């Protein structure tokens, strides 16, 4: 099915199931420990051996010698796989660095070897007996130092320019020119990257934890230089990804190589202390923002430049993305500049681009509002646009940013906000902050297969994944709505490359895209059902387990009397995303309290108001947003991979050193979804919220801390060492 004109009325509009708050259908399995994650799969041919990965001790250089003799002799050891015996390996299109080092080392903790043994304890002990000699080379590890040598990004990341930015900025009555920095961040999902691999002849099955099943199949096949048809990838439950499991990682490759070496299944989980350096991370940025305004508060010039680094062949952190679209202004420019760094590979982490971009832009907007003497909400409202500011012939498909801001301000009690440094409650300095949220909607081609059995049961199969986003439930809701059956009649099977290829989970495209694929398959199945029942043409109603055309009625199960009906289809998209700018919007409000003696910051209240099209399941959508708000608090106040600029690695590479928010850091959170349905995006009329929820949160926190203290910090995270000396004398 192709979606190439705005959706008319369709069965989803009934919203008898879709749009209703629905507890997760996979919930009982998850809360009772019965949902099997990758390392826990029991359905494996033979008892798996255990793999333990050794990471490189240097960031850049060459392995000059590697002695595995002692490890091989250690009790229980079955094999040690290194570049010397792994065979020729390719590299996936989406990996920048290789997933097995040797002889070249491309980054710290790049896999150097995997030890395979009968038990985990044996493999771990033996890994410490491998002796590796490195010829270490010097590298570039400091973004600030590499900034001058950074080059303009190319392709879709190339610099943009509209009007005369330089002239308009120079002549603007009120100007802001500030630089902000965001650090490297780690996804820190709770489930480590893990894989069980088993070979049967030349066919490979891997049970793994991956957001993108079809990418994973292709990339693993490319890496192992085998046909993709011979790879089966199974990933029914994923213990968090946040972009860190978009791509093939070394656990899958090492498990496959190990299983081939020892001729039996092997299970490998990346040890937690390897994850931040071995896998990908969100790259640090240096961002310069210039805004020029008239005294009426209207933006006449807006410029955003961002510098980031990556390994040779990598890409930039696209932190200027939102600045092309968020605010009006006739004269504008953006530029992404990329430096080559020898730190571990940078890549997508939840809301790549916008998350760090808005951390800077929305603080700049706060600063500009203050310069203008305007309320930060009013300043944003004045600069709203209903068209793409770079190409005014393109309207937004739907844009309710102003409503988000105004509704949020009303609900949050924004009018009680005081001047910077004036909110006092005993030892606490109290302030409020606001930021706009913005993230584009992306639709991806997505397929599904739907089966109707004799008992009227419906089974949906798609290689779509549920990374905690609630996919199982919204897909069941979609099928139940389309076929008029109760939710309990629907079984959803996900995350298996034997199923039709879906859009996968990433870029907040998953919910809308995957349910649209299910919609397409259900449309086909409805036609089959009507045909089987021998009903003539006409508008078929599927409701209450029955099918009705005119005055003819039958149980839907009757259609499958003669055997199961199976329909498969894929939703594809036309040009509507070119004609209309499709985006999601929101406003974040935060109240923060800073201890005037110790500088400790506590978040007291948080509110997000989101406009993201139809909300398929308000329960799981709300959870996506509060979870993102929590991650935003982390980004604002604590998360930072500390770079060792001498040796080129992230020092705090575990969950003790890399601090993320815990229970005590997060207050009760409120989320409001505006009642929307966007007919330009898909028949579901839905967009994504999973990344929108993170966009702008960090800035809202930073603006609240500024409002509390009157001290502006432009280097994230806002740890107290950056402002404690400016909190003033303690009485």
């Amino acid at each position, binding site marked *: 099915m192709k979606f190439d004109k705005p959706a008319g009325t369709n069965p989803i509009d009934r919203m008898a199931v879709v749009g209703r708050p629905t507890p997760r259908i996979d919930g009982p399995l998850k*809360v*009772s420990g019965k949902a099997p994650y990758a390392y826990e799969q029991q359905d494996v041919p033979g008892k798996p051996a255990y793999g333990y990965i050794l990471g490189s001790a240097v960031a850049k250089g060459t392995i000059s010698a590697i002695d595995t003799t002692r490890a091989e002799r250690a009790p*229980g050891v*079955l094999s040690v796989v290194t570049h010397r015996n792994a065979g020729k390996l390719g590299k996936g299109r989406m990996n920048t660095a290789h997933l097995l080092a040797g002889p070249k080392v491309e980054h710290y903790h790049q896999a150097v070897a995997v030890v395979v043994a009968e038990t985990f304890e044996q493999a771990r002990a033996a890994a410490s007996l491998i002796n590796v000699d490195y010829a270490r080379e010097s590298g570039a590890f400091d973004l600030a130092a590499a900034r001058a040598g950074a080059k303009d990004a190319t392709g879709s990341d190339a610099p943009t320019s509209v009007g005369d930015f330089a002239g308009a900025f120079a002549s603007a009555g009120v100007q802001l020119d500030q630089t902000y920095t965001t650090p490297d961040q780690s996804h*820190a*999902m709770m489930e480590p990257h893990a894989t069980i691999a088993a070979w049967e002849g030349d066919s490979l099955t891997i049970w793994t934890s991956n957001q993108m099943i079809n990418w994973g199949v292709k990339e693993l096949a490319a890496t192992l230089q085998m046909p993709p048809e011979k790879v089966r990838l199974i990933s029914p439950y994923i*213990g968090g*990804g946040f972009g860190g499991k978009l791509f093939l990682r070394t656990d899958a490759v090492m498990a496959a190589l190990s299983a081939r070496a020892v001729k039996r299944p092997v299970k490998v989980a990346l040890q937690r202390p390897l994850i931040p350096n071995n896998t990908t991370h969100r790259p640090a940025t240096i961002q310069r923002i210039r805004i020029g305004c008239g005294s009426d508060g209207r933006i006449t010039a807006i410029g955003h430049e961002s510098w980031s680094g990556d390994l040779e062949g990598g890409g930039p952190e696209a932190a200027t993305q939102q600045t092309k679209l968020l605010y009006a202004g006739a004269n504008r420019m953006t530029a992404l500049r990329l430096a080559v760094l020898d730190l571990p590979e940078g890549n997508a982490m939840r809301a790549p681009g916008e998350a760090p971009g808005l951390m800077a832009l929305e603080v700049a907007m706060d600063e500009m509002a203050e310069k203008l003497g305007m309320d930060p909400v009013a300043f944003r409202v004045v600069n709203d646009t209903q068209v793409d500011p770079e190409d005014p012939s393109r309207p937004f498909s739907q844009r309710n940013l102003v409503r988000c801001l105004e509704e949020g301000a009303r609900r949050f009690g924004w009018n009680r906000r005081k001047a910077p440094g004036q909110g006092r409650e005993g030892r606490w300095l109290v302030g409020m902050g606001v930021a706009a949220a913005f993230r584009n909607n992306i639709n991806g081609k997505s397929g599904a297969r739907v089966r109707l059995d004799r008992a009227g049961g419906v089974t949906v199969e798609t290689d779509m994944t549920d990374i905690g*986003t609630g996919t199982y439930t919204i897909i069941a809701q979609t099928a139940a709505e389309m076929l008029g059956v109760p939710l309990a009649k629907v079984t959803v099977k996900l995350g298996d490359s034997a199923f039709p290829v879906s859009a996968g989970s990433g870029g907040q495209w998953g919910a809308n895209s995957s349910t649209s694929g299910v919609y397409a398959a259900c449309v086909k199945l409805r036609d089959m059902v009507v045909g089987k029942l021998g009903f003539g043409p006409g508008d078929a109603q599927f409701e209450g387990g029955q099918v009705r055309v005119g005055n003819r009625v039958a149980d839907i199960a009757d259609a499958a009397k003669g055997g199961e009906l199976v329909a498969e289809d894929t939703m594809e998209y036309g040009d509507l995303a070119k004609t209309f700018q499709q985006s999601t919007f929101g406003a974040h409000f935060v109240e923060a309290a800073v201890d005037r003696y110790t500088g400790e910051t506590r978040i007291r209240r948080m509110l997000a108001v989101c406009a993201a099209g139809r909300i398929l399941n308000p329960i799981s959508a709300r959870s996506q947003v509060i979870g993102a708000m929590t991650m935003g608090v982390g980004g604002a106040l604590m998360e930072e991979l500390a770079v060792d600029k001498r040796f080129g690695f992230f020092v705090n590479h575990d969950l003790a050193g890399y601090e993320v928010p815990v229970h*005590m850091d997060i207050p009760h959170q409120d989320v409001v979804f505006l009642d929307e349905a966007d007919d330009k995006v898909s028949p579901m009329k839905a967009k994504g919220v999973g990344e929108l929820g993170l966009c702008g949160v960090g800035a809202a926190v930073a603006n609240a801390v500024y409002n509390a203290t009157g001290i502006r910090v432009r280097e994230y995270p806002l740890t107290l060492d950056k402002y404690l000396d400016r909190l003033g004398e303690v009485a």
Partner: protein
Amino acid sequence: MTEGYGAISRRDVLKTGAAGAAIAGSIGPGQAALAQPDPAAPPRAAVGLKVNGQAVRLDLDTRTTLLDALREHVKLTGTKKGCDHGQCGACTVIVNGRRINSCLTLAVMHEGDEVTTIEGLGTPESLHPMQAAFVEHDGYQCGYCTPGQICSAVAVLEEIRAGIPSHVTADVSKPAPMTTVEMRERMSGNICRCGAYSNIAEAMADVAGVKA
């Protein structure tokens, strides 16, 4: 603390300890092809646990953590390994009534101990009230930290009822109050990267019968 093996029947061992027993002394097919084993082979030991009310006897490499004993030998994989270093809380189980990080303790240290894992609290068909509250309040997303959160949450309410003070207890001479602040403080060793904290607080308050 040690109860010995008196309560364990042969049937129980066969029923629940088979996986662990099968591992004992096994030598992989590849081993013979390699050089002589290191004479300093690590010692093994037998340990008897009571897991979710069932007696389990295991013969283990003494380096095996309680977490790996549960997951890899008893095949109770509801208890999760998030970090293996006591940093995340995903491996929380209840041992003799108190919650612990099962990754930070060796299985052989628990002779005779009563271990309750997420599987022992309830099943999908018959959920423990805390498990049901997590479903109702959506106190999770990816689900990986969830068993640890739930084991911790159950034990936290007991700790507060038992009057055990915490960092945020204003007056340690009095019983700690059943408040969400007490709960949030005590739950702070259980990381949820999906950020379901606000919902978990509501689930716990619901079970405790207080206002979130």
